[in-house]
Structure formats: C-alpha cells, structure tokens
C-alpha cells in the first residue's frame, strides 16, 4: 500500500490535478500496489501559527472560515472518490470534526503530536476504517503501541453529543515516522533494526493484525523530500531480507505534490507546490511508484 499525496491539500484545483494524474499511475500498477491518496485537510502546527489546512482556511490567502472549510473538504473528498475511484486518507487532527467527514474517509492517520491524546485514541477505537497511529516525535515506540492497544479496545466516552461505547478497531496499526531528540536532531526509524524492534514489540503484546506503514518523509528523511525514494527502496530491501518484516510492513507513506519542494509565501505563488512541508515532485513520485510495483 502506498499512501501518497501533498503534505497539505491547500488548493482544490491543484490537488485534483495531482489526484487525476495519480489515478493514471494507479491504472498501471493497481494489480500490484494499492494507492491511497493523502488528502490532508488539517495541519498540526507546533506553535499554533501558520497555515492550519483547508479545514481552517479553504483559501489560504483569506481569513479562517471553518464552516466554509468543512464544506470545502467534503466537496474535495467526494471529487477525489468520484473522479479517480480511489480512496481518501486524511489525518484526524480534531476528533470532534470527524462526524462531518467520516462517511468519506477510507484511511485515517493519528499524527505524532496527537497520538498520546486520550480523545484521539478512544475515537480511533470506534472508527470503521484503518487507522494508523504514528510514533510520537520523541520516538518512544511504547507510546505508539499503547495507542494501538487503546484503539483496538472497547471504550465508553463522550463523542458527538452522546455517551458512546465503541467496539475497538482491529485495523488500528503503526506508522513509523522517525523522531527528534532533545537537540532537535532527526532520528530515523525505517532501518532494518527499527522494523525488527517494532515486530518484537508487536509479538510481545496482545495485538491483532500487526501492521506497520513507514512514513518516508518527516523525521525519517529529516524533511529532505528527495531522500524518500532511497528510503522506500531500503524498506523494500528489508522486507526482502526478513519474512516477518515482509509480513508486517504493509506499505509506505510518501509526501508528494505536482512540483517538488515547498514555498513559504514570500515569493509569487507556484501552483501545485507545497505551502507546508517539502514534497517529492510528481514525476519522481510516478517513477518511485513504478519502481515499487516492480519490486513487490
């Protein structure tokens, strides 16, 4: 499985051009690779400043309008499903917003800053689709596995104006995204030994469906977007070296957009270029997906 798309879905037309081009690639590899487009509409911001995603600002140049944002993301998700036939993945930044879009999402990620939060864990336990729990920015895999255990269990809590009971989500699984140490240095966790450690932690716990997605960007690449193809190839090599890792590692996550890199708003806007984290360009992404299809 390849979960791929822009860091943030900031512009409906650019995102849809990307998704329609991705759908053409999907047609060529769909017998070997399951492509799940990232359509991320809420962006966690470390200091609370900066662009918070389409949910907050359907037009990044205008003031926040969350009602317009909710309508814009429903429209965007439906366009992706209708025009491409592909599923939609988003990050659940705000559990309280999930009822507005839960009927449209096929894959949900819980981010590194949210994964320790009880409301996220409990909400994940009631979701019907696959939910990937990222390791926290500290890199402590115990935190991630505790979140998976919580999401796979039944809970009673307050949700969407009701006291609810969930059944537990057997599709909750791990996303390994690297970490940052106290000096601010990025520490990757996509290497063979890291995957072996994750396998051992899965086996030591009482989990169903042990599964890992490896995020090739963020702290695994040190946000060097161009490293993603090399990282993905190393992950595929690790799968080939160890049948346990092959069985556990179900896919990769790639940040990609029409134009490589990112822009900070100080220069004229470039259509299809990330306004948040730097992304792999589309041609390199296409070549990487074809390469993955050849290797699996």
């Amino acid at each position, binding site marked *: *499985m390849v979960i791929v798309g822009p860091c943030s879905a900031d512009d409906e037309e650019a995102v849809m051009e990307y998704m329609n081009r991705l759908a053409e690639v999907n047609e060529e590899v769909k017998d070997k690779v*399951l492509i*799940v487009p990232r359509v991320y509409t809420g962006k966690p911001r470390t200091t609370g400043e900066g662009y918070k995603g389409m949910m907050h600002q359907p037009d990044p140049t205008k003031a926040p309008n*969350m*009602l317009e944002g*909710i*309508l814009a993301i*429903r*429209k965007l998700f*439906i366009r992706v*499903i*209708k025009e491409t*036939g*592909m*599923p939609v993945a988003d990050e659940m930044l705000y559990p309280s917003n999930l*009822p*507005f879009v839960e*009927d*449209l999402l*096929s*894959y949900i990620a819980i981010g590194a800053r949210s994964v320790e939060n009880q409301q996220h864990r409990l909400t994940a336990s009631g979701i*019907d*689709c*696959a939910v990937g729990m990222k390791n926290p920015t500290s890199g402590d895999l115990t935190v991630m596995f505790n979140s998976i255990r919580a999401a796979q269990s039944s809970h009673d809590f307050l949700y*969407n104006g009701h006291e609810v009971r969930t059944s537990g989500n*057997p*599709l909750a*699984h791990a996303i390994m995204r690297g970490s940052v140490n106290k000096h601010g240095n990025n520490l990757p966790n996509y290497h063979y030994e890291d995957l072996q450690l994750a396998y051992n932690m899965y086996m030591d716990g009482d989990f169903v*469906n042990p*599964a890992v997605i490896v995020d090739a960007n963020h702290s695994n690449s040190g946000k060097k977007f161009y490293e993603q193809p090399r990282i993905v190839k190393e992950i595929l090599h690790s799968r080939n070296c160890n049948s346990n890792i092959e069985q556990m590692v*179900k*896919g990769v996550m790639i940040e990609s957009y029409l134009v490589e890199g990112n822009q900070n708003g100080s220069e004229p806007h470039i259509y299809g270029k990330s306004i948040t984290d730097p992304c792999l360009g589309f041609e390199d992404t296409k070549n990487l997906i074809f390469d993955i299809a050849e290797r699996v």
Partner: protein
Amino acid sequence: MSFKNIRAIPSPEAIRSLIPLDAELSALKQKNDKHITDVITG
C-alpha cells in the same frame, strides 16, 4: 471564559445532507475500504 462565537456550525447530519455522498460512490468507497482492510489483515 473568553470564547467569542464567530458563527454557528450546523450539525454533522445537516452538513452531510448539504453535500451528500450518493449511493454509487458510497458503494465504491466500501469497496476501497475492503481493499485496505485486506492489506492490513493480510
């Protein structure tokens, strides 16, 4: 409390009825969900 109400937000049900997912696309979405489930559980 220092929360200032900017605008009221309709209920999730009201929002979903404004921009609904039709039956055909809902079926496609279920099929896609199954593919992902098969990968995670496989």
